[in-house]
């Protein structure tokens, strides 16, 4: 804050502008009055300067309290009860039962495993492909803006529309992918029914949607790398691949860490793609829950089966798992930073 309080007009009176110049013809009493007025205003300005910032940030915190903190705490409270959606106000205290039950709930751990495997087979190829695409886009290209916008198109597409198209592509009997496989002599794959094909198909939707987004992040970071580094590397005789390995990658390290963290969080909350991949059964994630993620299981318990207490406990378990993932990420990134 470099504004001078005594000369700045109160924001109430038309913005923080310097005061007008004193008038030469003013009498003594008028001067006195002017003085008092100034003092009064200055007190008001001081109060204003002191409290206004809080007022300006208050909306966020009020909204956060109402829609962030309160639901979080209330969910915790509900998770200690048996509550049904049919009567959300009738709560039966059951203590930690909803949590202890999770430990031998096969469906929960199945969902947790699915979340992990879908997370890995979607995040790893996604980030590698994003890196490759960003590297290519970083070269001088004709119509590069077009390619960059095109990269973002899947991200801008509605997830529902995209998933429905993928469901048709991956259809077992009349899907285009099985038709293409058939052309090269491969037997049709039951994409929705079998575990690994199902998870692979769901991952494809995620990869399709997020690769361009990550590529643009990488591209932005690549463009911030000083050109001289490449020039000097070229003078030292490094080819394109060596330049990528020894100049681009090390400079991108913080960006890569960022995308890894964001993608991990996204992967642990995967919901829409598997839900829509099975438009009928939806939340059960396939006949044998073969691609039911934690998010889906939570939704199934809460909104299909109407067990709000159990769903709340699952939500808190997911929260705890996310915290663990966050800590692991933090440790790894600190190691990496130390090693560089």
């Amino acid at each position: 804050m470099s504004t001078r309080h005594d000369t700045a007009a109160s924001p109430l009176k038309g913005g923080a502008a310097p005061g007008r110049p004193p008038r030469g013809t003013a009498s003594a009493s008028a001067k006195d009055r002017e003085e008092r007025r100034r003092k009064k205003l200055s007190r008001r300005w001081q109060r204003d300067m002191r409290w206004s910032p809080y007022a300006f940030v208050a909306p966020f915190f009020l909204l956060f309290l109402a829609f962030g903190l309160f639901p979080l705490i209330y969910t915790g409270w509900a998770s200690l009860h048996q509550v049904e959606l049919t009567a959300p106000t009738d709560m039966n205290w059951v203590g930690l039962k909803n949590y202890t039950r999770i430990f031998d709930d096969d469906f929960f751990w199945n969902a947790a495993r699915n979340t992990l495997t879908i997370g890995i087979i979607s995040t790893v190829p996604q980030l590698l492909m994003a890196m490759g695409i960003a590297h290519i886009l970083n070269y001088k290209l004709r119509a590069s803006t077009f390619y960059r916008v095109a990269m973002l198109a899947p991200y801008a597409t509605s997830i529902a529309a995209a998933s429905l198209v993928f469901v048709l592509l991956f259809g077992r009997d009349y899907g285009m992918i099985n038709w293409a496989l058939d052309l090269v002599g491969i037997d049709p794959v039951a994409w929705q029914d079998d575990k690994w094909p199902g998870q692979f198909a769901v991952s494809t939707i995620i990869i399709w949607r997020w690769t361009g987004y990550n590529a643009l992040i990488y591209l932005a970071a690549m463009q911030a790398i000083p050109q001289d580094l490449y020039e000097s590397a070229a003078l030292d005789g490094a080819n394109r691949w060596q330049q990528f390995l020894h100049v681009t990658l090390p400079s991108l390290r913080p960006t890569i860490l960022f995308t890894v963290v964001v993608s991990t969080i996204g992967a642990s909350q995967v919901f829409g793609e598997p839900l829509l991949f099975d438009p009928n059964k939806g939340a059960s994630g396939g006949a044998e829950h073969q691609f039911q993620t934690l998010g889906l299981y939570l939704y199934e318990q809460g909104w299909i089966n109407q067990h709000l207490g159990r769903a709340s406990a699952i939500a808190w378990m997911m929260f705890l798992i996310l915290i663990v993932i966050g800590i692991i990420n933090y440790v790894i990134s600190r190691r990496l930073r130390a090693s560089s």
Partner: protein
Amino acid sequence: MRARTLPLSRQRTNGGKLFTRKALAVAAVVSLGTGLLAGCADDGGDKDSDSSSDGKGKTTVTLGLFGTFGFKEAGLYAEYEKLNPDIKIAENVVERNENYYPALLNHLTTNSGLQDVQAVEVGNIAEIVETQAGKLEDLSKVEGVNKSDWLGWKWEQATTKDGQTVGLGTDIGPMAICYRKDLFEKAGLPTDREELGKLWAGDWAKLIEVGEDYQKKAPKGTTFFDSPGGLMSAVLSSEEKRFYDSSGEVIYKTNPAVKKAFDMTAKAAEDGLVGAQTQFQPSWDQTIANNKFAAMSCPPWMLGYIKGKSQPDAAGKWDVALPPKAGNWGGSFLAVPKSAKNAEEAKKLVAWLTAPAQQAKLFKVQGSFPSAQSIFDSPEVTGAVNDMTGDAPIGEVFAEAAQQIPVQVIGPKDQIISQGLGDNGVILVTKGKSPKEAWETAVKTIDNNLDK
């Protein structure tokens, strides 16, 4: 900003200009504010839920529906508005009941966001009667409502133990067997609906036998029945007791009728009589479009679905025969929440919409089979035909099936149990699991879903 505010702040010395500035500011704020308010009012007008009357002093009665009820398509709203010039009707439709029902429960339990009339699907009516009756109006005492108009069991489904009727039936789903005449003929089976009805009358096992005959000479790539889930739910819906006993206990695991239906379907799936499909999925729709099965259990509304998914050349190739045992699949109710803005008007509207005369009109246009037994003999019903079934008198067949529907014990979680048995159970047999494994998976899933 500063550069621009500086000259303006200088103008404060000039009283007149100050006034104009203030006036301008006030005008700006007012117009902005009214603009915002107008925006809000527009929103309300869209849904018609917040405004109970429009500019001309008319009362707007709102309906919350799912899927296609067809009131509008059958011209019933226009007719009612003509009869009652001070009423306007607006509907708010959610495509799928899975999305509609949780929201309805939410709105009922919080007493907010409710429309004046709310539809309830038959799969949810037991839960609504059991848990939400206190929030809904008793419709049995509304003027013009005669209990005797409805099929007895339909009326009972929406009535609490102490006699409060929370919903009036709109339609029912008497099940018949729809079959492809051309495919039956190619497989050397009879194609006459009466002959077929007699062939499998009385026992689902006889239908399976016909299926075995079909499969022996089946046209390449086709199966007899559409899906294991469809077959099993047809068998189950002709049972009086399925998943709950009359005292409200869950008995699906121990009920021999359920196990028998499951095993019968699993066997049919093992023998390849049914396609490896789950109903209402895109790939199932494609089997309709590609004529991949010869028969399915079908309530009247299914004919509309078949029409929607078929190629044009399939029209007229279907026919409808009586099922081995009659059952019910589908049907809805209209309820009026106590906290509705226009509860009184809504009750009148519901009574009119569900009256026999209107149900007959709805059947004619939409194919929703009436739940009013008093019009089963009316020409609208008996004379009905359908594009897909050519000149077959489907009205007579469905009316006969409707009169044989048993009084069924329905429970609050019927949907979860039946979906678990089909989508998480018997379907697995088509994927190489043994019937025993499939049953165990189904039971495990259902028990987990029922456990509070």
